[in-house]
């Protein structure tokens, strides 16, 4: 037991050499009625008790990930002249939002093994194990998730977007689009040297609906019948109101 602890301490020692001190421009994103996307500034410093090691340059990777949820991806094919869904793959977990920013080109900041271990790059952040045997190219389905979500601004890989000064201060901006879902957005900062992760820091950004949005959303889930009746009442009132207004306008 003691030897195990010593081993752990030894393993942990290099990680302690350089540590992240982090700041966020906001640790909460409030989705209000006029929410139109958000930009979060992630900044920080690297704390160390020893002089800067000269061997390999320090690099920084910042990832922000939305809640991971399973999705179904369907593929269309031409059958009898029309385009129909022919097969589908259930992707076990795909983040609703995923942004990666690095301080240098991708292959300079991290090795494949480290990427695999920490699931940092976009394809690694998506977990898909359950492709049925009869589907020809299961990889094409995961690629489609990345392609479609990148087009919608939900997935982004920004190489060189982290500004690193004197191997000590860093900052980057993460754009969050308007079509954001609620949840805890896991934010990770990796420090790497020569492709190996030397330190990791994790925090979360709280993305929440507020005010009217919050109230309506809660009502729709907790009291669906009341919500439905309220929707109908508004519809009837609006219909009657418009009718009455027009009658007044024409008679007056």
């Amino acid at each position, binding site marked *: 037991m003691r030897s195990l602890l010593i081993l752990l301490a030894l393993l942990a020692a290099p990680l302690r050499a350089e540590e992240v001190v982090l700041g966020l421009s906001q640790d909460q994103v409030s989705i209000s*009625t*006029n929410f139109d996307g958000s930009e979060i500034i992630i900044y920080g410093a690297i704390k160390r008790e020893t002089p800067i090691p000269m061997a390999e340059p320090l690099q920084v990777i910042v990832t922000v990930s939305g809640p991971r949820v399973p999705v179904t991806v369907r593929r269309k094919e031409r059958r009898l002249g029309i385009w129909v869904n022919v097969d589908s793959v259930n992707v076990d977990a795909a983040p609703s939002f995923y942004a990666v920013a690095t301080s240098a080109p991708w292959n300079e900041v991290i090795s494949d093994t480290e990427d695999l271990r920490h699931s940092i790059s976009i394809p690694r952040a998506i977990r898909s194990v359950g492709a049925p045997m009869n589907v020809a190219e299961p990889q094409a389905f995961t690629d489609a998730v990345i392609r479609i979500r990148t087009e919608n601004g939900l997935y982004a890989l920004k190489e060189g977007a982290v500004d690193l000064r004197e191997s000590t201060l860093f900052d980057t901006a993460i754009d969050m689009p308007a079509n954001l879902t609620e949840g805890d957005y896991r934010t990770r900062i990796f420090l790497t040297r020569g492709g190996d992760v030397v330190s990791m820091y994790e925090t979360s950004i709280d993305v929440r609906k507020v005010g009217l949005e919050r109230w309506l959303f809660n009502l729709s889930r907790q009291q669906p019948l009341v919500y439905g009746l309220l929707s109908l009442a508004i*519809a009837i009132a609006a219909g009657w109101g418009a009718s009455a207004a027009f009658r007044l306008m024409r008679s007056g």
Partner: protein
Amino acid sequence: MQIYLPIAEISVNAFLLLGLGGIVGVLSGMFGVGGGFLMTPLLFFIGIPPAVAVATEANQIVASSFSGVLAHLRRKTVDLKMGTVLLVGGLIGAALGVWLFNYLKSLGQVDLLVKLCYVIFLGVIGGLMFVESLNAIRKTKSGKPPARKKHNWIHGLPFKMRFRTSGLYISVIPPVIVGVLVGVLAAIMGVGGGFIMVPAMIYLLGMPTKVVVGTSLFQIIFVTAFTTLLHATTNYTVDMVLAVLLLVGGVVGAQFGAILGAKLKAEQLRILLAIMVLVVCGKLATDLLIQPTELFTIGAAEGH
């Protein structure tokens, strides 16, 4: 001005939604169609998730139909008795339709079925109406009196009832069947069903065109209200913010539509509706026939 929709979870331009609601409202007041067959595809197009679009559209149709029916009530162009008979059938049909929809969903391919339904029904009805009203316009131009309503098998059925406003004395069986069919289709296709009911009332039941619009709106209010409640309580997909934006535009549009409709001749009204139905049908058909740019779609996960 961007606005965030709490249930759809996306941000859209408020003025775009107001405008769309307005245009569809005009059609609603003019033709007595709820406008869902036009609005639902438009909402898909601006990126609203289909489930939310269908459910919210039902809610919006309640508002525009209510606004429209008030205008028609004042002009005494609503056959309340006929509307009630149709409604009885409609509610039975809607319940049947929801059951059928869920059954087909469990088999997969429900999207395709909905689209095929649209193409077939819009194509057949649009085509028939177009030809018929073109003939009617030619006849009135050549000065011949319009043909007298013929007595057909419908008039031989039992349970006859007098519908004063429509000037009809027919069996209640055909209107109930029409109501059921429209209810089923309304639930499957996520529309009010006016575009099917209006021609059915004119050609099958032989109701006068002026009464048809108001009566159809009357029935649509109740069927879509029922659908809204079903969606709100089972799928939680009614987006109130989206509905309010659409219906503010919609109710105003419906009033203008009713005024416009009163000024146009019945044949012209019918040929306009026919053209519109055919255009939407053509668009949906080409979507099925032309290779889409993105072959993959992402949907919410379903059971393995």
